[in-house]
């Protein structure tokens, strides 16, 4: 379940000290269970949202649309007519945010696994001008065994193929400034995008910081994301990319 921590009033501003324009990028594929709660909390924090429905077959689109109607001008919904994968979805979201001249873009999972309180620490290095990209690092020790192993393997693969050593290559909570988002050149359509982003950070010489974040594990969020099968698919893709 989501932890109820938002006792702050609607006027609560995430960053009173800065007037940088922040857009949240939320990819969603069949997320009807939790996306309503997640979006509502983010709206309450005064954030602007870009939601990309990646051809969901459930009620995701309707739920998001109804919520956005209640917050005019602060939420935008994009729909892929057919499912195209996480990579394509993030790309659409980043492009949309760039069109809105976002200063900071934060990718945030729709399944309720991230704690909205982590958004501030993840954005801070960018606001303070220390970094172009920030990756939220999940605590591997709190991860269930099978998740931990597949994420460790993904880290290793990212290191071998892209020569980039990061603590959590598959994290869904990341922040980019305008320059970094513009520089990203993403090809991967599916979950391989997370490793690809790490590669791009290295290739484009972007300044990166890693910030620890909390992960809220539910049966639901555990059923999604990186598992052994997806890990294997990503590996095959990376090998192909090298052979190309």
């Amino acid at each position, binding site marked *: 379940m989501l932890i109820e921590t938002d006792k702050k009033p609607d006027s609560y501003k995430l960053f009173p000290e800065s007037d940088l324009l922040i857009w949240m990028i939320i990819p969603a594929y069949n997320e009807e269970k939790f996306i309503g709660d997640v979006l509502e909390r983010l709206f309450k924090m005064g954030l602007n949202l870009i939601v990309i429905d990646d051809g969901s077959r459930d009620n995701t689109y309707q739920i998001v*649309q109804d919520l956005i109607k209640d917050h005019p001008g602060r939420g935008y919904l*994009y*729909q892929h007519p*057919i499912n195209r994968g996480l990579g394509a979805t993030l790309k659409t979201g980043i492009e949309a945010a760039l069109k809105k001249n976002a200063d900071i873009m934060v990718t945030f999972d729709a399944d309720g696994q991230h704690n909205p309180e982590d958004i501030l620490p993840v954005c801070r290095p960018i606001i303070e001008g220390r970094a172009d990209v920030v990756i939220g690092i999940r605590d591997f020790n709190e991860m269930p065994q099978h998740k931990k192993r597949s994420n460790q393997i993904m880290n290793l693969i990212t290191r071998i193929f892209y020569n980039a050593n990061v603590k959590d290559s598959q994290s869904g909570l990341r922040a980019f400034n305008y320059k970094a988002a513009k520089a990203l050149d993403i090809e991967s359509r599916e979950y391989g995008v997370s490793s690809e982003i790490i590669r791009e950070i290295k290739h484009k010489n972007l300044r990166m910081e890693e910030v620890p974040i909390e992960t809220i594990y539910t049966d639901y969020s555990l059923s999604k994301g990186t598992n052994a099968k997806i890990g294997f698919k990503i590996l095959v893709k990376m090998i192909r990319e090298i052979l190309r």
Partner: protein
Amino acid sequence: MVMVYQYIGVLIGIIGIIFTLLRFREGKMSLGMLLVWNIIWILIIIISIFPQSTGEFATLTGVGRGLDLIFILGIIGCYYLIFKIYNMIENIEQEITHLVREIALQRENIELKEDEENQN
């Protein structure tokens, strides 16, 4: 003596040539692919009419038996085609993704806007 497979081979070759020519005329095949396929079909016809010729090729390449050479070439050809098709599908997937993303971006909040227009 003429064997049955020789007739079948020639027949398959001729049908193949007709099909590739038709597809080329309909604009569904490029000139390069037309040439490649016709060379394959003509080779099949020649080999069917002169089966001994494969033996000479086989000794030339050191494979030994003519039939083995045909098998080896056939398998290599199949792999090449699979590789080509794989790449074509990958390209098509990329193009579809591009289109889908473009459609999504152009139709930003489309139903909300329609609602507003209906209200006005």
